[in-house]
């Protein structure tokens, strides 16, 4: 066995020599881009409009993809105007799909570079870059007796992934969903069908006419509110309100939230950021995350969720000060220090050196 392995790796090294200084996969990429396990990609197999501003993409992930858990998201890399941009999208399909395809559902936010591109210009055959699924917005293995999902806008996406995968294992499900109008409800028809079949209790709220839902409204709409396990996803203000409400009722442990955007405070300061390995120097203001500043200057920055949760973006702060954009806390490194900071939620608070 060991001999075969040694021979195998020896033979592989010879193959690598054929193409050195690039790797054989770089040649393969030109003909079979989904075969390269080192560079995970996906092909768009279909684009289905959901509402006027959203669309579902059916993706065929290439080699290297691992099955997701309902509620998880994947990072998707899209070349827009020649620049590779990474964003997170919840997976809306069930892992049980036989054909190995996944779906994501994108809502075009006004002025949103990637979301608009995907909703308006994604076509069958287009290649996207992909990362393996991740995320902690999950149903527990022992399914809850009573579940409540509170969602708004595109926040329905991870919940739809859960419902499509696990509704048959849930007995008592309430879905409280808000959207601007009847037509703007993503997956509206599917949700209404589930409700009509009696599989979920759907409380649909159209904020354009009825106004935003307040946590106090929930007390009335869902009488056994605090007997339920709750999953919530939507705008930050809504999630902040819900968290406060559940904390007040000392039921915070029942509530799980998923945020699409980091809750940031606007920063003061700014300064010159030096990326020590690449030698790139950028002037930043105190509100732009180091991750964005670096990327805009062409530095290859590691990143993940881009909102302070995954730590894929961590780089050592070698000198200087950075401010956490979420809470304003300051991290200071003396020369010789090497303090890991999350670049996606940290901005320069004075001149600083980041090792990258």
């Amino acid at each position, binding site marked *: 066995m060991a001999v075969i392995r040694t021979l195998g790796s020896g033979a592989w090294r010879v193959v690598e020599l054929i193409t050195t200084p690039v790797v054989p996969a770089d040649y393969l990429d030109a003909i079979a881009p989904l075969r390269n396990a080192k560079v995970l990609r996906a092909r768009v197999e279909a684009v289905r409009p959901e509402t006027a501003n959203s669309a579902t993409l059916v993706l065929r992930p290439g080699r290297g993809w691992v099955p997701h858990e309902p509620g998880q998201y994947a990072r998707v890399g899209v*070349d827009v105007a020649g620049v590779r941009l990474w964003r997170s999208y919840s997976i809306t399909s069930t892992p049980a799909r036989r054909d190995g395809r996944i779906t994501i559902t994108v809502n075009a936010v006004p002025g949103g570079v990637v979301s608009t591109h995907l909703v308006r210009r994604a076509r069958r055959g287009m290649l996207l870059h992909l990362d393996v699924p991740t995320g902690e917005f999950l149903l527990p293995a022992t399914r809850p007796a009573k579940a409540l999902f509170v969602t708004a806008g595109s926040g329905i996406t991870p919940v739809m992934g859960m419902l499509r995968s696990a509704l048959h294992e849930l007995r008592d499900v309430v879905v409280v969903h808000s959207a601007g109008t009847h037509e703007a409800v993503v997956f509206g028809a599917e949700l209404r069908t589930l409700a009509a079949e009696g599989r979920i209790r759907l409380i649909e709220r159209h904020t354009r006419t009825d106004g935003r839902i307040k946590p106090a409204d929930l007390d009335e709409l869902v009488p056994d509110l605090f007997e339920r396990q709750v999953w919530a996803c939507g705008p930050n203000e809504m999630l902040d309100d819900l968290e406060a409400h559940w904390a007040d009722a000392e039921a915070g442990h029942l509530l799980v939230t998923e945020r699409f955007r980091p809750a940031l405070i606007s920063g003061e300061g700014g300064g010159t950021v030096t990326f020590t390995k690449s030698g790139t*120097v950028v002037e930043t203001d105190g509100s732009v995350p180091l991750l964005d500043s670096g990327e805009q200057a062409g530095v290859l920055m590691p990143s993940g969720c881009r909102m302070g949760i995954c730590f894929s973006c961590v780089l050592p702060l070698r000198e200087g000060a950075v401010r956490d954009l979420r809470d304003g806390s300051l991290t200071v490194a003396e020369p010789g220090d090497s303090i890991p900071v999350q670049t996606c939620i940290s901005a320069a608070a004075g001149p600083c050196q980041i090792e990258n």
Partner: protein
Amino acid sequence: MTTIQHKKSNPIAHLTPEDIEAIGVELDAIRDEVMGSRGAKDAAYIRRVIKVQRGLELSSRAVLLFSLFPPAWLVGTAGLSVAKILENMEVGHNILHGQWDWMRDPKIHSTKWEWDHASPAEQWKHSHNELHHTYTNVVGKDNDLGYGIMRVDEEQRWSPAHLGQPLYNFINACLFEYGIAAYDLELGKNLATPERRKDPKFRAALKATRRKIGKQMLKDYVVHPALSGPSFLHTIAANATANLVRNLWSHSVIMCGHFPNGVETFEKTSIEGETRGEWYLRQMLGSANISGTKLMHIMTGNLSHQIEHHLFPDMPSNRYAQISPKIKDLFQRYGLKYTTGPLPKQVASAWWKVLRLSLPNKPVVAPRAVAAERPAPVSDPAARWRRLPAAAAAAAAPAPVEAL
């Protein structure tokens, strides 16, 4: 050629410090315009060049599997030569300059790219991007001037060893990639003393280069020949020829960049406290272009637009042709010489200089014109790369751009 500071008729004597800063402001505006408009078309361009290069290399190597047959040898060798030239020039050199980093594609990024060359990308980037592009044509600082083995300026002291420099230059041309590897390692300096030889940094660099050369050699002279079975020896000859062609070609193109007549050199002291405008001016005067067709530009990796490249080393190469009329116009308006010419003429001019300076010349003495006119040096030399904030730039350049 004599450093500009010692010339009898100083080609920039007519420029005031304000003029020089105004040139800088204009160039920054040209840069901003192009850099702000980079997009999908540019990305498609470099991807297409890479694809064509790989296709050509692969098919040429496939043809060379039958290199025993003379037509196959000829076609394969020609194809491989072109592929190797493309790989080094339009693809490798430009990617390693970071011209395509803005795409954020890790496969086409200056920190990840490795090229078909004896010198590891990391080392070449240091000596080329950091040293040569910073200290362009500063005698004693820019080792690209004569690569430390030749006399390329009247002010360099002559010694009898320089009699051999036409020969060294020819040998260097044939083995150019190894010459560059040795140069990137600063072999001359680092082998000089036992301490330098033992320096762990040098040893690590040496090891990296040895590995790189080893792999390159194995590829061209063992693996591919072995794959071609009975054509073994013919494939070795084909690959050696392709490497030779590539070396001669890139050496010629690069000689044309800074050696031909009309290109200025600068004194070491003249760049102390250099401003952004002065830095730009030095790039303008220290480089020469090659005129020619579109194909010619691509085959030189757009180093035929050496002037534009030296002004904006990180601008995507496909854009140099687009800005070149504007740059020419700027030269004209400020009464500066935009040195350019067809390849044979520029190569001849560069070789003539190598020949001429292999012989001693009369010492040059002339007043240090420019240095005297320059304002007192700014204290922080590191800042000269940095663009002045808008307000400071406006103050430094009272003449508004439109008025010029």
